[in-house]
């Protein structure tokens, strides 16, 4: 097991390095600089600024400076907001995004799986069509449209929930709903199709022949086998949602980290771009690693490590 983890770790570091390098290449090849967007700074000021942020150095030196900042996990101050370091921004934004993301994922996974199971059990029945109708709507309606709709109806017209900001659990309801619908729909469809396949398997028939209750057959025998594809997309989904959604956070005025992704690129705020990218990639890689481990737990045929002598 230790050997496996070490090997995995090495691959993870390698992957991260490739991502960092690609990001760097993309960053320097995109035209524009952090300083000339307003056109209000003169030549000398700009040169001084570039010097201050090491942007005047040759590319390979800049590259190694970046690598060093990643290795020490110190990305330095933001260029646009010099009084804050990148770590400050992430440290403030991530817990909020993560909280929103985690609740969203829990809602999406639970409701998605339940919807998928119901649809599969009533295959071609009313519940099936209803659940899949909801799923298609969930996939095709962009979350920002859903968000504005929810605000208009549930917050403005009926005043059930606050319109925006991030203060109490009540503030969480609308953004979670808006954010969870898409993933829920994907998970529901996935669960339904794998569940339909699993339910035709011989071992389900055998479980019925044993006289087990339908509940036991579904939860113990079918669901476990049907969840594999859901687990597969969970890693990407978790990383994507927990690191913040730019649009949803903008709409609900949630101070998460979603906006840094987009703003940093618009402003060519190199340290923030690096910081958010590295953070997101590392998070994604760790999630995918956890998914690998989860496979082994759910399905004993998938062994992450070989036992001695086997």
């Amino acid at each position: 097991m230790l050997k496996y983890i070490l090997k995995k770790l090495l691959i993870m570091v390698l992957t991260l390095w490739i991502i960092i390098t690609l990001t760097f290449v993309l960053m320097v090849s995109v035209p524009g600089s952090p300083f000339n967007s307003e056109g209000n700074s003169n030549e000398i000021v700009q040169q001084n600024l570039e010097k201050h942020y090491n942007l005047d150095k040759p590319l390979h030196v800049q590259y190694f400076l970046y690598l060093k900042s990643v290795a020490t996990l110190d990305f330095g101050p933001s260029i646009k907001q010099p009084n804050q370091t990148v770590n400050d921004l992430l440290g403030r934004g991530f817990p909020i995004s993560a909280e929103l993301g985690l609740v969203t994922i829990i809602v999406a996974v639970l409701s998605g799986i339940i919807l998928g199971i119901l649809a599969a059990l009533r295959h071609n029945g009313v519940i099936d069509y209803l659940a899949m109708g909801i799923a298609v709507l969930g996939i095709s309606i962009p979350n920002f449209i859903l968000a504005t709709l929810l605000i208009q109806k549930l917050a403005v017209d009926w005043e059930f929930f606050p319109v925006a900001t991030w203060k109490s659990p009540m503030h969480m309801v609308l953004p979670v709903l808006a954010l969870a619908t898409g993933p829920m729909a994907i998970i529901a469809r996935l669960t339904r199709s794998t569940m339909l396949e699993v339910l035709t398997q011989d071992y389900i028939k055998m479980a019925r022949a044993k006289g087990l209750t339908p509940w036991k057959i579904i939860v113990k025998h079918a669901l476990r086998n049907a969840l594999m594809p859901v687990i597969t997309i969970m890693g990407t989904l978790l990383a994507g949602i927990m690191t913040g959604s730019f649009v949803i956070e903008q709409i609900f005025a949630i101070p998460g980290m979603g906006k840094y992704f987009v703003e940093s690129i618009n402003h060519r705020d190199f340290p923030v771009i690096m910081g958010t990218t590295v953070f997101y990639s590392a998070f994604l890689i760790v999630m995918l690693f956890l998914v690998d481990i989860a496979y082994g737990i759910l399905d004993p045929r998938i062994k992450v490590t070989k036992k001695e002598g086997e």
Partner: protein
Amino acid sequence: MEKILEVKDLHVTFTTYGGTVQAVRGVDFHLNKGETLAIVGESGCGKSVTSNAIMGLIPNPPGKISGGKILFKGKDLTRLQEKKMRSIRGVDISMIFQDPMTALNPTLTIGTQLMEGLKQHRKVTEKEAKKRALEMMDLVGIPNPEERMKQYPHQFSGGMRQRIVIAIALICEPELLIADEPTTALDVTIQAQILELFEKIQDVTGVSIILITHDLGVVAKIADRIAVMYAGKIIETGDKREIFYKPQHPYTKGLLNSVPRLDTKGKLKPIEGTPPDLFSPPKGCPFTARCPMAMEVCNKIYPGSTTISDSHSVDCWLQDERAKQLLATMVTN
């Protein structure tokens, strides 16, 4: 002898987009206590549907038991509610499936799958369940049961898995065991071992067995009586010896002739043609189109049952006196 199971005029239909399939069309048979009855027939003749009907495992919709009775120890299973049926399944009547490679859940340990039926139906402690499971594994001949309980199906060979499936079926001491092609998916040497195991468990537990198969070699080895099925009907039943040595129905004869033998030379003799479409089964004898002895009447009217002996009966017009006379004159000419 005490009859443990009586199937009377059983009809099973499946409704599909293409129409209604009459998979089982009036099947009658019975099973005595401690006996092995083999139901023989080619693919699609309704053998498995019959066994699923006894288990109450016909998926509804599209399937439906549209007529007849299944009397298990005098109780009509077709009228039982699902909840009652669940307390019979796996307890009084168990089933063994064709393919041991797919009949076990790949994500649960053998021990879990063995014990769950017992835990569902009997009030047992974990310890008692385990003891019983170990006994069963011992009975079906699995070495190191203690250790094997903790393993998963993929760590077992095909033959070993079929032994496990048998152990699972027998753990609640059922009185009736339905084995749906239990050796078809196994290779020949393993087949022989599994058949011997069937004989052994019948000796030990006294369980009655319905064996669904198309393999006459299997039948010859372990069956007491044979029912030959064709196009959703049982066309001939009798003791093993009667069916093998004095087959009456042309279909039964064809089946026996198509078995490859070591002592005859030449090509295999298949039964020409294919079974009828069960969307619209023929009014007369369904075998008419393939029958070398077919007569005008066969096409129009289904023959009634003719009793050959106490145990042997057949549905065929050739049993009619006039047909017999005709055949006799044809031979003399």
